């Protein structure tokens, strides 16, 4: 029997505070109240998701990125996680028509760290009530972008900050919102790495092999 059932099977008594001594719920009442509470939460969430257009503004947020360590002279990939609010979609990096605004990430890198290409996932092919016969390439929910970075061998080991902006244009099922830009900031840790093997080491009578 689970702990939770054990809790329900005993009469619910909270005796640590004198004012709560009178609070005694039968297991059946507690179960009913619990079910009612869950239903209330789920109903409110469903209603919040289904607000008519324009009643909620779209929101794309970035999860705090994990600082990755990249060995200098070697490439590494930073994964950036974004969350698109429920009920909204944004165009993918390769939208289906020329007039749609693609999602793009623009970054400025510290000196001596090369930013390679940004890896965009393929968009979901979705149709919407406003155009049921047309498939659009969009992102919904969680979006993960990969950024390739490569510190030059001359970079001093340490933490380096990257700054940029995610440009996106969001729509819901009946309206579209002007393009917006989300600030993007993350750090990478550049490590010295293992000493490189020299092909032609300095000749010295003191070098022992």
């Amino acid at each position, binding site marked *: 029997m689970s702990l939770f059932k054990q*809790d329900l099977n005993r009469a619910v008594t909270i005796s640590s505070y004198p004012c709560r001594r009178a*609070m005694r719920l039968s297991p059946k009442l507690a179960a009913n109240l619990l079910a009612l509470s869950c239903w*209330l*939460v789920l109903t409110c969430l469903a209603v919040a998701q289904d607000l008519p257009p324009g009643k909620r503004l779209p929101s794309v947020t970035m999860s705090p990125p994990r600082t990755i360590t990249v060995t200098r002279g070697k490439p590494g990939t930073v994964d950036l996680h974004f969350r698109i609010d429920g009920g909204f979609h944004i165009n993918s990096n390769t939208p289906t028509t020329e007039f749609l605004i693609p999602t793009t990430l623009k970054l400025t890198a510290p000196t001596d760290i090369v930013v390679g290409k940004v890896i965009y996932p393929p968009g979901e092919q979705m149709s919407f009530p406003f155009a049921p016969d*047309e498939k659009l390439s969009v992102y919904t929910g969680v979006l993960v972008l990969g950024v390739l970075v490569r510190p030059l061998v001359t970079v001093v080991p340490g933490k380096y900050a990257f700054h940029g902006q995610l440009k996106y*244009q969001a729509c819901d099922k009946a309206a579209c919102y002007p393009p917006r830009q989300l600030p993007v900031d993350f750090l990478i840790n550049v490590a010295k790495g293992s000493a490189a093997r020299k092909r032609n080491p300095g000749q010295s009578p003191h070098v022992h092999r």
Partner: protein
Amino acid sequence: MKRDPVIIIVVALVVSAMLAVGVYKSRRSPDQTKTSGAGMKGQSAPDFALQALDGKTVHLSDFRGKAVLLNFWATWCQPCKIEMPWFADLQNHYASEGLQVVGIAMDDASPQEIGKFAKDLGVNYVVLIGKEEVGDSYGGVPFLPTTFYIGRDGTVVDKVFGLKGRGEIESAIKKALSQGQAVQAQK
């Protein structure tokens, strides 16, 4: 770990209450802020001067005596693409009764691109290059499409957010055409 049902219930009720208040506020606030439709209803539609695709300056007051369907749109707005052919069709149908559809492109695209986009959709009505201040004078246009129905007397009959069905659009047009008809007749 012991879980106390009373605490779970209280937490669930508090979360429900917070969500309910949030939903209630978000449903109410657009009607009371600058994104309001109700706020403009019955008011005189602000005049503007905007450039048409052919370079001519067009004022709203140029259409005095006509019912005007004023549609804010953009080339990047997919739902806008759905209603534009309907507007073209309705413009044909109700032109003789005094309807003028005016599209305002809230776009960064060039007039040539906007013109091409509109032509591809069969647009036969006036298309103007929008300015932020014109949107602001209409209470703000934070999303597209947004459509105002203006009666013959120049008052805003209705403001509609987002894509609506063709039937709803046609009903609003009829309402705008009937608004101020008495004034016209007296003249």
